[in-house]
Every structure is written in structure tokens, then in C-alpha cells.
């Protein structure tokens, strides 16, 4: 039947402005889906073409991921978690690979830092020069005890061929004879390396030991014989390395070996595009559906007339659906353009913050855009059908009667579902209060969604309740205020549809931002209380290996402890919720007693005295997440993926500010790329006497090496809050404008009855204020119900809410509502004045 579509087309063509609200809502939904889809697809396709290994068609490297395996048999799922540091391969493997057919050479490649007196150099084994294109300019290749420098390094150290230069490596300070000078290849200075900082090459036999990883290399680059097929070569190499656990990479996968940051970048993009994108899409779809429903309800009289004149329920449903469908394609397309802009900006920000390597490019293909448009269409169709059910079903007589006033009782199904969602939210709140760590964070999200669902479903009831509460004082505040209260009470449906977006924005923004401020606040407090050292020594190139010993030799120094900051992976959870959590770790030189002199970890159980090889201390949050206590063994993965099962000797309370895991420095040696400590904590001594070692500050200068996760995570939280907040703001304004425009007649009638223009505006402002107040209050309640148990689980304290920030959110909500109400009202009243 074509007729109802004709009606829909006529309706849209005649009064396009009445569909503007639906258009905007659908366009925004498309915007969010397009932006998140682009980021997700970029994450899926992200790859970096190899630079360093460009001339080696095949590269052998260790697997840079650890895997979380859930389920078994058919449902077996493996989730890859990138390792915090580089996993390495045995150098001995190079001999096996070289024997494979078609291989011209198998070159073990290493990159590691060495220190000069007051700077650092990027060092490699000399063997890698055939791969990177470095060439000897003068002198000879280095043998054991010798080094080849590039021009910048020689200049920095003020040496020439034949001189001796003192360099600090993982094994300590040594003197090397400068055997020659070379021109570095384009990638020799490192990824973010400053080409002016200098490159050094050591003998292949000595390099692994100097790097701190005896017998291991970062990767083995395979050079091919002329005329050999790359795929055949790859197959042959694979055969040669079977059983060693190493992986063979070709094509762009070689770039992933060079760029360890790629794994993190992909994980971050999946998180934003996938997880956040999913939530944002659901929110956007439900909001758009609500707008379509509002638009349909505003035209209830027209549909009642159609029913009276002879339209079947089916024709009405199709008409409502068609109207939404006519607007959807253009809305979808219009939403895609700013969506691309948002993705572009977000991607750039992530690159600026170092989450995504510079070499990764953002891909914009047609798929996410198509998905956005299709989603807009489906939302319009679905929402249209659901919104059309009521005008289609009810008897025309009833419809004509009702059209002037809202029906009082909400549908039974809706009420039941709303109560179920409310109860569900309360239950999950209880669950998250008794759990802790990551389980609490996961439950928090569920709580917000369930409460939001309850608000959406029980909207009119909740609105009427709140208006009842607030209406009493309003009634005494003058004619305009009491009129506003009466309007809101009788039109609770309209009120509810305006309150919902504000509540949504407030709840999500508050939860995300105050989660971040709470954690930050707790971390800062713990940091301030936790560092009891008199002096903190740091150096941009890292502290020398014997820094602690040298400090102790300085007069006046009672204790000196070196700290290396890195990360380990800890498996937590069980069954379906197994995951690998990255835990900030500090490796400390010195014994537990010495550590207690410079750091106050607030030990709750056990004691630090036994800290040492195979014995660690952990933070209480990790203890409860991983379900271990003093005396248990905690399975974990060291930064390069090596498994370990140390015993827990102490549980302390300041893990958020200091580090989640404290272990002895020696256990980490050989498992990290940089052998140089980050910080030296000193008790006693004076600033002047320690100045030789590096920059000296007092305790306030200590900065935990926040893992890339945490830094990017807090920015991402704010970003997500901004996106959801912005979306809710537009949705709220959209809804409010729609409702005010629809009341043009009513406002005109008020003017005729004798209200001045100012009085009508004031009444509307009161209504806007009411909407904002209820929305902000509900949103705050939801955020509180979510954050309080969650923060109690993760940081053990109440959430920290900066009053200024909260005030800003509230002011934004109120300002928005007032603006959205005043502007259309002025326009409408202009005709009547």
C-alpha cells in the first residue's frame, strides 16, 4: 500500500521544521557511530611499515603478547595482552636460521641505551649494520672491548679514532677503545630518538651482555639470497625455528616488531571504538528513539483524525515509521561528516600523547560511514514502529479525547520493566560494594546503564514525584512559578522526555570524570605521605648502575635506594572474567629495611624485612583482586614475559600513589630494556654533595612513572565524558526546543488571557529550571550510587569530587536548559506581542 507513505512524504514536505528534532537526534547518533567506527577500524587495520627491517624480508622475533585463555574446546577464546617490555629471542637461534635454504644471513639485532658522563647513546651490535645501512667512515669494525661511534657521539664525548671512552652499560662502567667512526643508518638513533644524541656499535659477541640480556637479541633479521622467493624463505625459516616459541614475521608485521607501542595503540583504539563506541551507540540510539516518540506524540491529534476518517492501525504505524525513515538517510549522511572530524581530532590527540605511534595512519573507509547511516535508518524504523503503536491501537474516540491532555497512567509493561531495571541497579550496586578492584569497575558501568534504563522507563512517574516535591515551595514563589509547577505536574511525560538527556549527561560525565579525580586525589595523597626520603635524585638519561653505592659513599648519607619503574602483568579473576592486569612495579636496590627508611608504604600485613629474590610486596587492592595474602605465591609475568611465582611477604596500602608491586631490583635485571634506574631516594646527605649524580630535589619532586595506560586512561576518561556530555547537551536542548515550539498555541493563549510577555518567559524559565534541577539531581544520584561502591573497592576511600568541577557541571546543565527554553519562547512570543 503506497498511500500511507504519501501521507508521510506530504507531512515532511509541508512542515519540515517539525521533523528537525528527529533529524538532529538521528544525525548525532550517526556522528558517534561514525567516529567510533573509524577508530575501531583503524585499530583493526593499524600497521606500521617496517623501517629498520625494511631490507630484511623475514624477521624472527618473540611473541610480544601474553594471552588470556577463557573457555575450552569450541568456546576457547584467546585475548592478546601486549607485554610491558620487549620479549627477546635467543641469539643461538640465528645459527639455525642461517642454515635454512635461501638465507643469505641471519643477523641478531639489538637496541639498548648506554650512558656517557652526562648523556646517553643508542647502542647496537655491529652486525646489524648490514640491515640498517650504517657504513664505516674511518677505522675498523669493533672487537670485544672496542666501540664504533657515529659523528654526533664522537663529538659529544670529544674523542677520535684510537682514543678511549668511558661508557656505562648494564654491566657497569667500562672503558672502550674507539675502533672507528661510522655513519648511522636512518633508524639507528631509535624511534623517538633525537638524531643528535649519538649512536654506538659494539662487537656482536659483547653487545648482548652490555645490554643486560646475555645471549638474547631483540629480533633476528633475515637477509635473503638473490632470487629467493619471500614466501618460500618464510616457510624455510619457520621450519628452522619450530619448537623455540619464536614467531616469523613478514610484510607489515615486521613493523609491529619494530614498534612495540603498536600493541598498546591497537588495544586503546579497540577500547575507544569498541567498548566506548558500543555504549555511546546504545545511548545515542535510545535517545534518538525517544525523540522520534516525542515527535509522534506531539502529532497525536492528527493521527486521531486519520483514525477517525478511516486509517487502519497498520496504516498509522507505517505512516509514523515512514516519516522517521524519510528523515533518516539525510540525517545519517549529515552526521557522518562531523563524525570523521571527531575521529580525526581524537586520533591526533592520542598520537600527541604517545598512545599511538606517529607512523600509524588513520584509515577512513566507507564501512563505518555505511554502518552509521544504516544504524540511523534502523533506529528510525524501529523507533517509528514503536512510537506508532499507541496512535494506531487506541480507539479514535479515546484518542480525540486524550489528545489535549496526557494520559495519566503509564503502560503496565513499561512500569514493570522500569521497576525491574531499578531493582537490578540496586542489586548490582550491592554486589559492586562487596567486591573490589576490577570487578567493581565492571559492575559500575552496569549500574549506570541499569539506572539510566530505569529513569528512561519510569520517567513520567519519577518526574511527577520530583515535581510534587519541588512544587510545594514553588507554589509559594509567585504566579509564574506556581503555573510552571502545575504545567509540569500534568505534563509529566513531556517533562520526563526533557529530563532524561540531562540526567544521562550528568550521570555519565560525573561518573567518568570523578572516577578520575578520585583516583588522582588518592594517588597524590598516598604519594605525599609515602615518600619519606630527604632527597630525590633523577637524571634524564637514567641513573648509573652504581648510583646507590656512590651515594652511600657520599658523606652524611645514611640510606640510598635506587628505584627502577616498570610494569608486570598479573592474572586476576577466574572463569569468564579472567584478565591480565598491568601493575606498576618498582624494583628497589637495597633491603626491605633500607626501603622502609625512604618510603613509607603503610604496610598492613607481613613485613618488608624479607623482601628479596623471589619475594615481593604488593598493594592491598591487588591482593584482593588476585585473592592472595601474605605467604601465598603470586603468579605473574615479568616485563618481557618471563613467568615467575614469587612469594608475597607484605601487603601495603599506598600502592596507588607509589607502586602496586614492590620487588628487588636484581629480579628485574635482564628483563627490562633500560638497565638504568629511574630514581634514587636518599636519606641524609646534602643537595650539593649529591649533585654529581643528577638532579636533586626534595620529596615533592618525585613522580611515579605513570604507565602509559594510566596517563592515556585518564585523558580518555575525560574525552569520553566530553563526548557523552556533549551528546546529552545537544539532545537535551533538542528536546526542550521541540516541547516549547509545540506549545506555541498554549503560550499565545496565556498572552490573550492577560499574562505579559515577561511573565510567560518567566514561567518557562521556571519550568526549565525545574527540568535542570531534577535532571542534575537524578544524574548525581546515579553517579553517586555508581562511584561510592566502586571507589571503595579500588582505592578504599570515598570519591573525591572537586566542588568547582561539580558546580561547573551543574551550571552547564542549568544554563543549557534555560537557553533551550528561552530562545524558542522568545521567537514564538514575538508573533503575539
Amino acid at each position: 500500500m503506497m498511500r500511507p507513505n504519501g501521507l508521510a512524504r506530504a507531512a515532511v514536505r509541508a512542515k519540515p521544521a517539525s521533523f528537525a528534532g528527529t533529524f538532529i537526534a538521528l544525525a548525532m547518533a550517526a556522528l558517534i557511530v561514525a567516529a567510533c567506527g573509524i577508530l575501531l577500524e583503524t585499530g583493526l587495520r593499524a600497521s606500521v611499515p617496517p623501517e629498520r627491517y625494511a631490507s630484511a624480508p623475514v624477521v624472527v622475533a618473540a611473541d610480544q603478547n601474553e594471552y588470556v585463555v577463557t573457555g575450552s574446546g569450541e568456546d576457547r577464546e584467546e585475548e592478546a595482552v601486549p607485554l610491558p617490555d620487549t620479549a627477546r629471542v635467543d641469539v643461538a637461534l640465528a645459527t639455525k636460521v642461517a642454515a635454512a635454504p635461501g638465507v643469505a644471513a641471519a643477523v641478531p639485532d639489538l637496541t639498548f641505551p648506554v650512558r656517557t658522563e652526562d648523556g646517553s647513546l643508542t647502542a647496537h651490535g655491529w652486525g646489524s649494520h648490514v640491515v640498517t645501512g650504517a657504513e664505516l667512515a674511518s677505522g675498523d669494525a669493533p672487537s670485544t672491548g672496542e666501540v664504533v661511534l657515529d659523528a654526533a657521539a664522537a663529538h659529544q664525548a670529544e674523542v677520535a679514532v684510537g682514543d678511549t671512552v668511558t661508557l656505562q652499560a648494564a654491566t657497569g662502567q667500562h672503558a672502550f677503545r674507539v675502533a672507528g667512526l661510522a655513519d648511522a643508518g636512518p633508524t639507528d638513533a631509535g624511534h623517538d630518538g633525537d638524531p643528535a644524541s649519538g649512536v654506538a656499535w659494539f662487537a656482536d659477541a659483547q653487545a648482548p651482555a652490555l645490554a643486560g640480556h646475555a645471549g638474547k637479541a631483540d629480533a633476528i633479521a633475515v637477509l635473503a639470497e638473490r632470487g629467493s622467493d619471500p614466501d618460500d624463505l618464510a616457510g624455510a625459516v619457520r621450519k628452522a625455528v619450530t619448537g623455540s616459541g619464536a614467531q616469523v614475521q613478514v610484510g607489515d608485521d615486521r613493523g609491529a616488531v619494530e614498534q612495540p607501542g603498536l600493541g598498546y595503540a591497537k588495544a586503546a583504539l579497540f577500547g575507544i571504538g569498541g567498548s566506548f563506541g558500543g555504549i555511546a551507540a546504545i545511548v545515542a540510539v535510545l535517545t534518538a528513539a525517544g525523540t522520534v516518540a516525542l515527535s509522534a506524540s506531539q502529532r497525536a491529534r492528527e493521527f486521531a483524525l486519520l483514525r477517525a476518517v478511516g486509517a487502519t492501525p497498520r496504516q498509522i504505524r507505517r505512516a509514523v515509521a515512514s516519516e522517521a525513515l524519510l528523515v533518516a538517510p539525510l540525517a545519517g549522511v549529515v552526521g557522518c561528516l562531523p563524525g570523521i572530524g571527531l575521529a580525526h581530532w581524537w586520533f591526533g590527540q592520542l598520537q600527541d600523547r604517545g598512545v599511538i605511534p606517529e607512523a600509524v595512519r588513520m584509515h577512513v573507509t566507507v564501512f563505518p560511514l555505511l554502518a552509521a547511516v544504516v544504524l540511523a535508518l534502523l533506529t528510525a524504523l524501529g523507533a517509528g514502529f514503536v512510537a506508532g503503536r499507541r496512535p494506531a491501537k487506541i480507539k479514535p474516540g479515546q484518542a480525540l479525547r486524550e489528545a489535549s491532555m496526557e494520559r495519566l497512567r503509564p503502560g503496565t509493561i513499561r512500569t514493570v520493566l522500569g521497576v525491574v531495571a531499578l531493582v537490578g541497579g540496586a542489586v548490582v550496586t550491592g554486589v559492586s560494594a562487596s567486591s573490589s578492584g576490577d570487578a567493581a569497575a565492571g559492575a559500575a558501568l552496569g549500574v549506570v546503564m541499569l539506572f539510566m534504563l530505569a529513569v528512561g522507563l519510569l520517567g513520567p512517574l519519577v518526574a511527577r514525584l520530583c515535581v510534587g516535591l519541588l512544587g510545594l515551595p514553588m507554589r509559594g514563589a509567585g504566579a509564574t512559578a506556581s503555573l510552571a509547577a502545575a504545567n509540569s505536574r500534568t505534563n509529566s511525560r513531556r517533562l520526563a522526555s526533557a529530563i532524561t538527556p540531562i540526567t544521562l549527561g550528568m550521570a555519565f560525565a560525573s561518573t567518568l570524570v570523578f572516577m578520575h579525580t578520585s583516583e588522582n586525589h588518592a594517588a597524590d595523597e598516598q604519594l605525599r605521605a609515602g615518600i619519606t626520603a630527604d632527597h630525590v635524585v633523577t637524571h634524564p638519561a637514567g641513573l648509573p648502575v652504581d648510583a646507590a653505592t656512590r651515594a652511600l659513599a657520599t658523606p652524611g648519607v645514611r640510606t640510598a635506594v635506587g628505584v627502577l619503574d616498570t610494569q608486570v602483568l598479573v592474572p586476576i579473576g577466574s572463569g569468564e572474567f579472567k584478565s591480565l592486569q598491568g601493575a606498576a612495579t618498582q624494583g628497589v636496590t637495597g633491603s626491605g629495611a633500607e626501603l622502609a627508611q625512604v618510603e613509607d608504604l603503610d604496610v598492613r600485613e607481613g613485613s618488608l624485612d624479607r623482601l628479596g629474590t623471589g619475594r615481593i610486596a604488593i598493594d592491598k587492592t591487588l591482593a584482593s583482586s588476585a585473592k592472595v595474602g601474605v605467604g601465598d605465591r603470586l603468579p605473574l609475568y615479568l616485563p618481557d614475559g618471563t613467568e615467575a611465582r614469587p612469594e608475597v611477604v607484605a601487603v601495603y596500602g599506598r600502592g596507588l600513589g607509589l607502586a602496586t608491586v614492590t620487588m628487588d631490583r636484581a629480579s628485574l635485571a635482564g628483563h627490562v630494556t633500560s638497565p638504568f634506574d629511574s630514581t634514587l631516594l636518599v636519606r641524609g646527605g646534602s643537595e650539593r654533595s649529591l649533585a654529581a649524580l643528577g638532579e636533586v630535589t626534595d620529596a615533592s619532586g618525585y613522580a611515579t612513572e605513570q604507565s602509559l595506560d594510566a596517563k592515556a586512561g585518564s585523558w580518555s576518561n575525560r574525552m569520553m565524558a566530553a563526548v557523552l556530555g556533549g551528546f546529552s547537551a545537544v539532545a537535551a536542548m533538542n528536546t526542550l526546543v521541540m516541547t516549547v515550539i509545540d506549545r506555541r498555541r498554549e503560550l499565545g493563549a496565556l498572552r490573550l488571557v492577560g499574562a505579559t510577555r515577561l511573565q510567560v518567559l518567566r514561567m518557562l524559565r521556571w519550568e526549565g529550571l525545574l527540568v535542570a534541577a531534577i535532571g542534575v539531581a537524578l544524574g548525581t544520584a546515579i553517579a553517586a550510587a555508581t562511584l561510592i561502591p566502586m571507589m571503595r573497592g579500588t582505592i578504599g576511600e570515598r570519591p573525591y569530587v572537586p566542588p568547582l568541577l561539580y558546580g561547573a557541571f551543574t551550571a552547564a546543565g542549568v544554563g543549557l536548559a534555560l537557553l533551550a527554553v528561552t530562545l524558542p519562547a522568545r521567537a514564538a512570543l514575538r508573533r503575539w506581542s
Partner: protein
Amino acid sequence: MRRHDDKGSEPDERPTGATTGTPGLAVELRGVRRRYGRGTGAVNALTDVNLALPRGTFTAIMGPSGSGKSTFLQCAAGLDRPTAGSVHLGGTEITGMSENELTELRRSRLGFVFQAFNLLPSLTVEQNVLLPMRLAGARQDRHRAAAMLAQVGLADKARRRPAELSGGQQQRVAVARALVTSPDVIFADEPTGALDTGTAAEILALLRQGVDALGATVVMVTHDPAAAAWADRALFLADGTFAGGVEHGTATQIAARMAALGTPTARAGVSVGAAA
């Protein structure tokens, strides 16, 4: 004019048990009740309505506000389902019909004119007149629409939108639409309520013309004695049931009868059913 005093059950020729309407009657209501709400808050809009209207007549239904006029119209026209009783239109019982069947009926055999908001603002005048045909999926007969518009004196306004017409002109379009399907019955709910006397007279003349020239049956709810004077008969609704009527009355007679209806003594002891 025939009267129908029976209420409740009557002998039935059909073995199925469904009540049959009396042929020749355009509108027939038997024992119709309509109650809103539940329990103590319930409102009995129609308490016991019995009515029989022959074809080709113009009947005005009158009564004070709250007497149940609009409810009566909606029940009679199939826009609402009565709590009890049966309604027959043109011999067919509509009380048991499904929504789709009722819709069919409304499209082809009934016409409606409301007090206001008769037209879809997004369609032109011509499209509004042809709306019932459009909904039926039938071919839209533009000649017929033009003829109807000419009959109501708005032939030149076919392409305008309702917003461009005056109130009286909009009502005339509504009448044109009501007539376009040659319906059995036209139901009008206060069609002249929002119009001045001159324009109101035009509308009533059109309805009268529909009855006299085209043989339509018109049931008009109104509170205006002057409008009721155009009808063949004016029936009075009070407290949800009929309480007498006036045949071929003048506006003054009708007004006087209405005033009398307002006092409680006049209503006591009145017989149920349409009475002269």
C-alpha cells in the same frame, strides 16, 4: 417516523444469535451504556440509550454540557466501544466488529465533521477531500473532489493548504470530505460551534442539501438551538439518556424545551427511548 420502544433482547430470526438491525433504519442503538473509569471514580456517560433513526433524515442531538452528547456520537459512529448494548448502522451491527472492519466502515459508509481540526495541515484542500479514498487504496477521483468542492462553493481553493483558509472555509471542506464517499450516515460533532451565525448557516445549508438532494442521513450533535432548527427532529440527551424531543421545531421552541430540561422536575418521570 417510526419509534422503537423495545429495550434489551428481541426475537431473532438468525440462528447465530447475533442481533439484526431493522432494515430502513440508518442508525439504531439498543441499550447502549458507556462508563469510564473503575470503582468509585467511575463516570456513567451514557446510562441507557435507545434510538432509531430512519434513512434520509436530519437529526439534531442536543443537551447541556456533560449530558454525554459527544460520547453518544462516538459510540454511534464506531469511534468508541460501548460498555454494553448494541449499535447498528444501515442494518449492520458494528458493536462486535474488529478495528479493521470498523475502519473499513468509516472509510466508505460514514462521514465525519468535527468542531475543529478536521483537516490534515500538511495536505492540500483537494487531498484532504480525497483522504478517505486514499486510505482505502482506491483511485482518487479528482473529478468527484472537484464536484464536491464546487458544491460547497470552494472550487477555486483546491490547491490551498488548510492554514490559508478561514474557519468557515475549513468547515466547508470538511463537509465536502464527508460527502465525497456518498456515505450512509454523516456524523457531525458541533460543526458550527466555532463559526459566526452567517457562516454557520452556510454549513447547515450544505448539510441540509446533503439530506434533501443526496438522500444522506445526518446526525448532528449541537448545543445551539438555531442550528437544531435546521434539523427534522431535535432529540434531548440528559444525564446519559434521551429525554424527549421536538419535531420540526423552531429555534425558540427548541430553546425553551432545552431550558425546561435543565430543571430536575422536568426530567423526572420521562420515558426511556426517543419520544416526540
